[in-house]
């Protein structure tokens, strides 16, 4: 299973919301889809979910075109939009039951699927409440459950963490990891990049309708942010360590942060190993030596300009 987007274009009048983007990601992986507001994330996701049609280009879910065969593609994709369309006068269980029916799930299987989903998304206590009476976070849970109702191999999640409380966010991250382990291909957009960094295997960064970076996190980071940040603490005064670090090979910059010294080093893990060895050789009693990779947030800030259209 692979999700492949080819030269996807979507114009709204003269605005090029999506401007010929191409990317792909495999099953069993979580890909972050990030970009500034108005970058074209939601439009791309809506096209992948067959909720919109591209002006040009195509997207394929396991080789099935969302443009040419949307009916087949709909079996494969679960979409969680950044909003839950207003459904008046319907309870949570009825809402999920409707979508299970709409995906063709028949009686005994439908009941099993709905019971499993209610448990998975923590909706058991909400099943008899009407949708309009739910909080934003609760609606997000219902929306996620709806996207999963037909057990699709591809999940498109637009801002799933928006409106969730901290506990629910942690739970969502765990849920997404479980779903990825089950072999689903997951594309998730979020503005909370620090949280997204913790779960994504890859990222697609979009700005003004164009792809800025796309690929596995390791590949992108090693290309764009090859350096690493090393946080060191010794039992000697930090000023002494700071001075020594600035003289060592591979260290680009260093700064004192309280009792720690942060050193930006050029190169990979071998440079960090050499740095630690050199410190020990010079007799610094190292208490703490932590290597920190740049994350999605730093990458995003580094490669985007913040332009909106």
């Amino acid at each position, binding site marked *: 299973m692979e999700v492949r987007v080819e030269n996807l274009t979507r114009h709204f009048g003269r605005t090029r919301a999506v401007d010929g983007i191409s990317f792909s990601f495999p099953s069993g992986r979580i890909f972050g889809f990030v970009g500034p507001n108005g970058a074209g994330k939601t439009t791309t996701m809506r096209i992948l*979910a*067959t*909720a*919109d*049609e591209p002006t040009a280009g195509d997207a394929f879910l396991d080789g099935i*075109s969302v*443009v*040419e*065969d*949307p*009916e087949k593609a*709909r*079996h494969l*994709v679960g*979409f969680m*939009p950044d*909003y839950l*369309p207003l*459904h*008046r*006068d*319907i309870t949570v269980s*009825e809402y999920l*039951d*409707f*979508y299970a*029916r*709409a*995906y*063709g799930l028949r009686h005994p299987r439908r009941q099993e699927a709905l019971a499993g989903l209610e448990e998975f998304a923590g909706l058991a206590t909400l099943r008899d409440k*009407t949708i309009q009476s739910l909080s934003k976070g609760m609606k997000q849970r219902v929306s996620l459950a*709806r996207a999963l109702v*037909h057990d699709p191999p591809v999940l498109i999640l637009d801002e799933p963490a928006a409106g969730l409380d901290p506990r629910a966010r942690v739970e969502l991250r765990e849920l997404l990891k479980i779903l990825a382990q089950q072999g689903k291909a997951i594309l998730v957009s979020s503005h909370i990049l620090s949280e997204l960094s913790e779960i994504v295997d890859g990222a697609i960064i979009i700005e003004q309708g164009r792809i800025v970076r796309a690929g596995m996190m390791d590949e992108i980071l090693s290309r764009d942010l090859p350096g690493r940040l090393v946080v060191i603490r010794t039992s000697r005064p930090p000023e002494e360590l700071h001075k020594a670090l600035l003289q060592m090979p591979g260290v680009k910059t260093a700064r004192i942060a309280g009792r720690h010294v942060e050193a930006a080093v050029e190169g990979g893990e071998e440079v960090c190993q050499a740095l630690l060895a050199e410190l020990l050789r010079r007799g610094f009693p190292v208490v703490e030596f932590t290597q920190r990779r740049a994350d999605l947030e730093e990458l995003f800030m580094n490669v985007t300009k913040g332009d909106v259209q």
Partner: protein
Amino acid sequence: MNPIVVKEARQAVRSRFVSAVFLVFLVLQLVVVWLYVLFNPDLASELSGGRDVTSILFSILTGSCMLFVPIYSGVRLAWERSAVQMDLMFTTTVSPGAVIRGKMVNAALLTGLIYSACAPFMTFAYLLRGIDLPTIFLLLALGLLNVALAVQFALFLACIPTSILAKVFLGLFGLGVLLLWMFSGLWMGFAMSSFGPFGPTGGSDFWTGMATLALSALLTIGLLYVFSVAVLSPPSANRMLPVRIYIVGVWLVLGIVSVLWKYLGASGAGMEPWAACSVAFFAVWFAVAVSERSTWGTRIRRRIPKRLLARAVAFLFTSGSAGGVLWTAGMIVLALAIFYLMDGPVAGRSPAGDFKDFFAVSAGLALYGFAYAMTAAILRKLLFSGRLRIPHYYTWVIALALLTAGTIFPGAVLILTCYGTGKWSPETLSGGPWTLTNPFYLFSNDSRAGHLVFASVWAALMAVASIPWLVREAAAFRPLPQAPR
């Protein structure tokens, strides 16, 4: 079971709005019947009480159902189809046909609910005497048909991808047509309630009129249904296939009934109504055909047959303006040919007189329809494909504007330029070259020949101008090349 029906029924049962409308309807009936009984103390001696009360109740019932049920169903679907926040049910595997059918069934359930609320009052009307049960049931069936038509029209309107303003305009226009329809139904209903369905009014003319009204309502419902399904289908699909199959099916069945009617039915019956309806319908359909797309995606191209003959037939039944124009022209030619063979000189009828006039008017209307539609298509390509762009699906609007201008504009210019100059007389307006673009002058014996020549020349010019386009489109209609193994 259709998931749309389950969901909508659940929502309707819980909806305060539906409950409120239902209660208002009940109260209204109660008040009206109470007032009628209060102000008619001679009810016991008169035999017209039941008839009057039925007429009043039927008016309230039809009016309520025709306003509430279509608006409720149409607005909900339009909201769900909103481009900004399209309902996610359209990203599920539920088919467009199931959506429309589900909405119709739900509308039928609501109508049934309102009808059931009316049932006790109708029973009361029957007890007042002056009306029989067949009349009441026929009235109710007629009202139900009206409501079904209104609901299907509202659903169609909700499906089409256009602005709210255009939908409101089309809705008002449709409401006008539906009200006319409803009033003719009411008139027939009142006539029936006065004399009974098998009384003096219930002659063959009455029943023929009633049957025609009911049949045309059913056929329109069917057409609007296939149209709505086509609009909801993905653009990559062959959206027009079910529409054209439906039209050909209805056209064939009506043609066969017409032939049987002529040979087995009442003496003097002819095929003119069928031929006239066919030509008028397909003449208008030219405008629909030129508003279709002109490219096919891989989904359609995968299904294009390789054999030439099968491909030619597929071309006529595949979404696309060129195929649509050829199909429409073919249907008109077939209709006129069948009419000529079955009810014309071949069938022993004199080629002169009525037959000649009818044939000339029909052919003229078809030629005008083709000429206006093709002119609109050519104008759109020449003038409105650059910065000032009109999408192909609005070509019918250009055709309509041209027809309006061609019908009104020359006469208006004539009046403005000649009025008061001594060259003016009312007769000037009814003849002469300035009426040539007005197809309705075909119905005038004096100007028919000139209009027919003009329409023929105009249509021929448009046909010649369209040949490269038609050839190009037909040539492009090829199956996908097979990938090398």
